[in-house]
């Protein structure tokens, strides 16, 4: 069973990213549960596969508007689709790296997969609930979804 600590690792990862790269903290709203077939995503989604002692995935999904704003606040002159795509990857990478450090040797954390729109398939186990962590950054709201067996 997934523990609080496991989820906190991912929350910390995403918090850390925004704090260090945008100097603006994110606000985390109360998490809730979601079944595998209920998972919906926003414009852009970064998915990280997890295996080893625990199996599942973590995804961060955000609206394009937020990502464009994020790109601009990182110092870019214009938010091209490429940059928007990249920035999701970077967020996901940070979470992935954080997880790799925290979970240590018994876990395998994949390289993030970036999807625009609905992913073809999310490898969630049927009887496993996912944890949705609704978050806000600078008036935009986005979601972190953690689904681990």
């Amino acid at each position, binding site marked *: *069973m*997934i*523990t*609080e600590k496991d*989820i*906190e690792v991912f*929350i910390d990862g995403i918090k850390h990213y925004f704090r260090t790269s945008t100097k603006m903290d994110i*606000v*985390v*709203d*109360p*998490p*809730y*549960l979601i079944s595998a077939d209920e998972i919906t995503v926003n414009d852009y989604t970064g*998915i*990280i*596969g*997890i*295996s*080893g002692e625990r*199996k599942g*995935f973590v995804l961060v999904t955000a609206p394009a508007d937020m990502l464009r704003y994020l790109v601009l606040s990182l110092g870019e002159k214009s938010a091209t689709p490429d940059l928007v795509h990249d920035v999701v990857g970077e967020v996901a990478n940070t979470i992935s790296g954080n997880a790799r450090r925290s979970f*240590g*040797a*018994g*876990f*395998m954390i*994949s*390289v*993030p*997969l970036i999807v625009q729109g609905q*992913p*073809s*398939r*999310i*490898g969630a186990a049927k*009887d496993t*609930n996912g*944890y*949705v*962590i*609704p*978050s806000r950054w600078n008036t935009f709201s986005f979601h972190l979804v953690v689904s681990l067996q």
Partner: protein
Amino acid sequence: MKNPFLSIIKGVKGSMRAIGGIFRSKYIEIILAVGLFILLDSGVLILNFYTSYQIANDAHAIQLASRMGTLSQSLLHELYQVQQDANNQDANYSESIDIFAKSYRLFDETLDAFIYGGDLIGVGQGQDALLKDTAYRDTSARVLKEAEEIWKVYRIKLKPIVYAYFNDPGREKILEATTIAIDYTRQQNDKLLELMESFATAVEGVAIRKAERLRTIQSIGIGLAVINFFLILFHFLKRLSKSDALVEKSRKETEDILENVNEGLFLLDKDYIIGSQHSKSLHAFFKDDNLAGQNFIDLLRPLVTEKTLDTVEDYTEILFSPRVNESLVSNLNPLKQVEINLATDATGFDIRHFSFQFSRVYDTKGFNNLLVTVKDISEQVKLSEQLKAANEKASKEIDMLLAIIHVENNMLTDFIRMTEDGLNNVNNILKKPAKTTDSLKNKLEMIFRIAHKLKGDSTMLGLEFVEEKFHSLEAAIVVLKEKQALTGEDFLPLVVQLNQLMSDFTIIRNLQKKMNAIDLSNMQLEPVLPVVGASLDIAADSAPETLWKSQLNALVKRVVTDYGKQAVLDMSDFDATLLSEEQIEPVRDIIVQSLRNAIAHGIETPESRENAGKPSEGNLKVKLTQNGSSLQLTIRDDGGGIDIEKIKSTALAKRLATESQLSTCQSASLLSLIFRQGFTTAQEGGLHAGRGVGMDLIKSRLGSLNGQFKVKFKAGRFTEFQFSFERERIAVQL
């Protein structure tokens, strides 16, 4: 100490053996063939030398033979010169005699040599043999005979002049001899020339024939050598192509094996480099077509955990150590069963289980490689994991089954439905956006009420393991409630517990479904709560009050045991049929909470009861009666009543009221405090009371019934709660 001599002998023996080995080996044929080739070639070479020597000799003989022709002419010429010099008184004839004598001797000796094989002036020693060659004499015997006959006379006639060279007889004598000699020479001169010329031609003929013969022998020798060469070539090309075919065949066989074997096979060297020869299936294993020359550790790095990788490095290292016994460490193979995580584009990972086997590859010089066999054992692992999970699930389910089997089926159905609804409600409450601390606190309150209610339900059904879970959920909420500032993240522990509860109830629901599939009425089970009614399906409707009683009795029994108290429940005036279906749930909630409060706060311990002169067993009375159009629910305990002072102090401690407010207010309004959220006089939250939510829940349930309540109590004697609400409709009576 070894004897050095012995070792030398050994060495010699060894090298001899080695040479013998070569002769016994397949190379013997080529060695013999090449030897023959060299023999033939050197034969031809020797023949060549001999031929060129012969030709040089023959050329010389021809030259000598021709010179004799010339000499025969010179003799006459020189005789004339001698005659002329002898005639001339002033001239010195000795010089011309000298010239003549030389030519004479030359001719004489040469002829002699041709006929008898003698020495020859002015010709090298080795030439004797040539002139002794009978070939010339045989072919030109007649010519030489004739020439000898003529020369014999020459000798007689010319000798006096030749002697004159040594012993001058005087001008007159010489002149005389010269005249005689000239006469004869003039007669025979042409004849001699002719003979000599024909001899020269004969010698030439012999030489030509000889040269031709030698050339033929030479050609045959060269021909044999060439034939031998081609035999060698042909034979060994055939042998080579045959062994090539064998090599090709074995290569093909190896290739076929490597192409088609299901296992991944490859060689690994000390630097972890994968060999060029490996089975094709290996590509599929690693989803990589260029494995040859790759570093095995680097290949594994993204596929396995760091921990495993470190162990693999150590393990291969010890396998390469000659100081380690291979069979004694095979148990340590960290890749005997390993989870491999192959990245795919859609899901991030494709999880496979591989089994790697390492074995040392020995050759004459020891071992430098490991043969690695890789098998995909995902299916086996999946099966065994499924089996394990099924076992775990089964044992968990058995525990749950043992717990729920005693619960009457319809009640269980209701309980499961209500609990799942409640849990979903909690999730929905969490889901609703809330940004302020107040709205978050509000969420907590709502969740707490649900949790508390569900805990009560599970207590009532005797499902202790569920009760404990709700209790710990409550505990987690209490922690949060005491926090000054709340963030969304703080809710995480609740959500984790919620998830656990949800999955437990999925199991319970499935279990019940399975239980329904078998006819439990035929089973020899003795439920703690007696099942009343002909069949389980109509049990709840057939005798509701009996069911109510048995459930509530069970609840009371459990709660009093937990508090170390004693009490009996009296439900003789309880008519469950008065309630409508919608009213059953809230009324049950109210009764459950009230009874729990009554036992926790009202009923005293048996000792204090005895001290107060009361029976040690407390009395709890639950009445449901009709009063006109309304129903009245009464819950009364014969405990210590309500301690107003305790309420006051709690209210002060929780800052629900100030001291001045308390001093002026009536008992009635003080009592209303006990219905406030979070109010409890209990020291610590127990399972049944003390969270300060029971009364709050009662209040909200009463609200849903549109009811009112009254509290009566007498310190040291009793507490009575009276709830009144409209009667909705009469429940169907059977």
